[in-house]
Structure formats: structure tokens, C-alpha cells
């Protein structure tokens, strides 16, 4: 029984197409948009043409980039906090059905409470000089639930034979968690993170809408400002940057998912029969 060693070649061709194809669709979409807007003469207050948006983007490039950076940092921090918080809570809930039963409804309350109405409380609580912290908390609130929910399901879905095996080896809860439950729950956790990535971004933006001030100058601020001035092309430029950021985050999450699951999970494995 001798054999060439096992090797796992990457699928570079597929990876390139994964980027090129949506770009192509995007280009077609923009062209159609441009044509429709110009031929129908849609007023730019309703829907500005892509060329106008592009001009606005170039014209305000650096201020928009600064705002993008601000929003990005809040997003990333909120996302990391959401992942840590969601997974930690899910781990706690997975330890006992009773804890989960007793406290899950409260996680739901956190999810369904509109940030706009608890923003004042949080501002009082962190002090109104700590706007950034307030934004982080609010964005976290928006983003953490999908991770909690999906991770809980994932941890509960552990192959029960593998759990038995761990029990036989006298493994501690912690080891069961790290060796079996966590890797097994990975597809679920990553799916949750894919959802939460976008929600962190939207959370950072909404938080800035409801609790932002002149000191915080993220994309939300640009959108409000442009909206107030009825500079709709600039607003769309900011929205476009937001979309690009969202797709970027999604792309990164998809890549992580692919790397983590490609060797074993049905959803990522390239099947040969």
C-alpha cells in the first residue's frame, strides 16, 4: 500500500471568477442605470446617474475616505465584540439547557430593542463625552444576535457519537467544547458571522445616525449632511462606499469560511461524484 502523498490543490481559476463575475454584473447594472436615468430624465434628487455619483465621489474623495475609515474602525471593533460576545454567550447557553431557557429571552430583548430608543440611556451611562464607546455598544447590540443564535444551534448540533467518545476519554467540558463542539459548530458560526458582518456595518452607521455628533464623522454623518443639503449624488457616493465596504466584509467572511471548511464541510467541499 504505497501511494502518492495526499495533496490539496487550490482552485485558483474559480477564485478569480468569483471576483470577476460580480464585477461584470455590476458593470452591466451601472450601465443600464445610466441609460435609464438619462433617457427617462429622472431628476437627480430621485436617482442620480452613476457618472454624477462618480464625480461626487472624486470631488469629495478625501473627506469620504476619512469617514469611511472612521466607520470601518467602529464596524470592525463592534464586529469583533459581537463575535466574542455572541460566541461566549452561546457557550454559556450550551452548558445547560436551563441557563439557555432562562436567559435566551433576554438576549432577544437586546435584539429587538431599537437602538434609537436606548441611545439616550447609553449616552447617560457612558457619559456624553464618550461618543465612540456609545457607538460601539449600539453597533454591538445590532450585530451580536445572529452569532449567538447560530452558534447556539451549532453547539447543540454536535455529533452525539463524538460527544460520547469525549465522555469516554474523560474529557472536561472545556475540551469537549474546543475539540468537538466548536469545530463542528464552525459552519454555523461562520454563517452567523456572515450575517453579523453586514449588521455590524449597518449598526455602526445607525448608531452614528442616532448617537453621532460632530465629533464623530463617519459615513452616516456624510449621508445626513449630503441629505440635508439635497446633494443626492454625494449621498449616493457615501452609500456606494458603504456598499463596497459591506461587500468587502462579506468577501472576507466568505474567504474565511472557504478556508475553514473547504477540506471537510459539505457546503464548501468540491465534490467529485
Amino acid at each position, binding site marked *: 500500500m504505497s501511494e502518492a502523498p*495526499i495533496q490539496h490543490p487550490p482552485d485558483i481559476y474559480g477564485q478569480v471568477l468569483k471576483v470577476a463575475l460580480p464585477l461584470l454584473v455590476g458593470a452591466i447594472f451601472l450601465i443600464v442605470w445610466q441609460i435609464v436615468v438619462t433617457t427617462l430624465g429622472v431628476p437627480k434628487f430621485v436617482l442620480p446617474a452613476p457618472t454624477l455619483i462618480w464625480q461626487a465621489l472624486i470631488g469629495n474623495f478625501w473627506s469620504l475616505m476619512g469617514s469611511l475609515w472612521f466607520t470601518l474602525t467602529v464596524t470592525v471593533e463592534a464586529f469583533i465584540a459581537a463575535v466574542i460576545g455572541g460566541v461566549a454567550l452561546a457557550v454559556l447557553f450550551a452548558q445547560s439547557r436551563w441557563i439557555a431557557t432562562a436567559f435566551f429571552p433576554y438576549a432577544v430583548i437586546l435584539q429587538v430593542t431599537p437602538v434609537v430608543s436606548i441611545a439616550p440611556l447609553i449616552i447617560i451611562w457612558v457619559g456624553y463625552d464618550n461618543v465612540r464607546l456609545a457607538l460601539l455598544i449600539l453597533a454591538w447590540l445590532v450585530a451580536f444576535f445572529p452569532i449567538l443564535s447560530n452558534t447556539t444551534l451549532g453547539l447543540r448540533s454536535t455529533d452525539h457519537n463524538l460527544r460520547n467518545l469525549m*465522555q469516554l476519554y474523560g474529557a472536561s467540558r472545556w475540551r469537549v467544547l474546543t475539540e468537538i463542539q466548536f469545530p463542528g459548530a464552525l459552519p454555523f458560526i461562520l454563517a452567523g458571522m456572515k450575517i453579523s458582518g453586514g449588521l455590524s456595518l449597518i449598526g455602526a452607521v445607525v448608531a452614528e445616525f442616532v448617537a453621532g455628533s460632530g465629533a464623530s464623522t463617519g459615513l452616516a454623518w456624510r449621508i445626513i449632511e449630503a441629505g440635508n443639503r439635497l446633494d443626492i449624488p454625494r449621498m449616493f457616493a457615501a452609500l456606494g462606499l458603504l456598499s463596497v465596504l459591506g461587500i468587502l466584509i462579506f468577501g472576507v467572511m466568505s474567504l474565511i469560511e472557504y478556508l475553514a471548511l473547504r*477540506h*471537510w464541510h459539505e457546503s464548501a467541499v468540491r465534490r467529485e461524484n
Partner: protein
Amino acid sequence: MQMFAPEAASASPHTAKPIITLNGVTKTYGNGTTALRDVDLAIGQSEFVSLLGPSGCGKSTLLRLIAGLGEISAGRIDWPQTAHTARGEPEHDIGFVFQEPTLMPWATVFDNVYLPLKLKRMSRRQAAPIIRDALTKVGLENFGKAYPRELSGGMKMRVSIARGLITRPSVLLMDEPFAALDEITRFRLNDDLLAMWAGQHWTVIFVTHSVYESVYLSDRIVVMGARPGRVTADIRIDEPYPRSEAFRLSSRYNDYCRLVSAALHETMT
């Protein structure tokens, strides 16, 4: 060559120094299926016991209960010789090869076999030669880097066997470990298992559907009857170890096989 009535099993003079005793063990699953009813059994220290019985009679259930997986509906299982941990749990050192391979799909073959050693806090480097050795024994020396989905059914089972044996447990429970293997590999692993058993004074409980295999391997064969599962025959194979191809060709081997077959037939009609 002796055959005991089931009720005499635990009183058998051959079953000296029991390491596991089952008394009136009954298992009823939540859906109402009674998998085991009133099973009495005593497994002696260092015995090699084969468990035979029709499909669905409760062999796997029995093995799991012995291992402490799942709750017993009635009766009790004791480990009279086993120390207990501070938390009151028996501190036995069990190896279990499940009926299904039960591998971690996200881990390579190497990492799957490494798992028990990892849990004993052995470093990867320390474990590597041991694992390589175990993989060579089951003919998978080139597949350490493969993932379970890249293996054939029999190869997966062999990984599971390698994992079950790697800690050299003092009590080994095996649930049809060789069913998916070709005869040649099976025979080789049979002999390997026997050699390890003889060298280490293990206690083995071995579920199989092969009468031949059970006679070749064990010094005692327990035959179970169909649902609700119970012990219907308890046959001692009084043959010296080490056993070899010569035993397989002997007429006594054939006689034993016929005897076990007959017991199996009886239990199913």
C-alpha cells in the same frame, strides 16, 4: 467445550475475578422499544468475550451501557475492581470502537488518531511516532494527511480502530470493528489484536456477526436473543493461546463454529 445456561453465567467458575458485572440490566428507549431486558452478565478480568446476536438485538446498546453511555432503565452495572474518582465516577480506562467510524470530519486522519493522546496532554511531537506506528498497523501509513471524506468505508473504520487502540486501554469495547474489511486485512488485524490482548492483559468485549471470527478470537462467546435482548447462550472456547492458522484448520474449530451457529439459530427461532 461447555455451554452454560444464561442464568448460570455469573456463577460460572471460569468467570473468575469479574471486572464488570451486569445485574438485571434493562434498557427501554424513549419511544417504547425495550432493547435489553434483565441482562445478567459478568465479564472476568482479562477475558476476551465475543458478543453475537441477531441484528437489532441490543449488542451496541449493551456495549454503550457498559461504557457508561446512556442511562439504564432498570438493574445495575458495577465495576467491582475499579477505583472511583473524587467526583464518584469510576475511573476506568476504556477504549471504544463504535460501530460507525465516528471520525471528526474536520480533522485529518493523523489528528483523528491523535485525539485521545491530545486529551492526555501528550505533545504532537511525542505522539507522532506512536500514531505513525498505529496507522502502519492498519495499513494507512500514507493517509495521515487525508481527511475522512477522502477515505473508503473500510479505511475510515481502520482509522477508528487505530484511534481506539492508541491509548492501550485496559478495557476494550469493539462494536463490529472488522465488518467492513476484506478477509486478509481482517485476519491480520485479528492476529494483531490477539497479540496485543495477550501481551497487555486487556479485557475485551467484542461484537461481531462472524461466527468464525468469534471462535478464533475469544475465550468466551455470549449469544444474545432478539428484542427484547437477553443472553441466550454463554459458550466457553477452551483453546490455548496463541491461536494460529492451524487452529482455523482444526476440526475443533469447526465444531465450535457449528455449536455457536446452532446457538444463534436457536435464539432466532
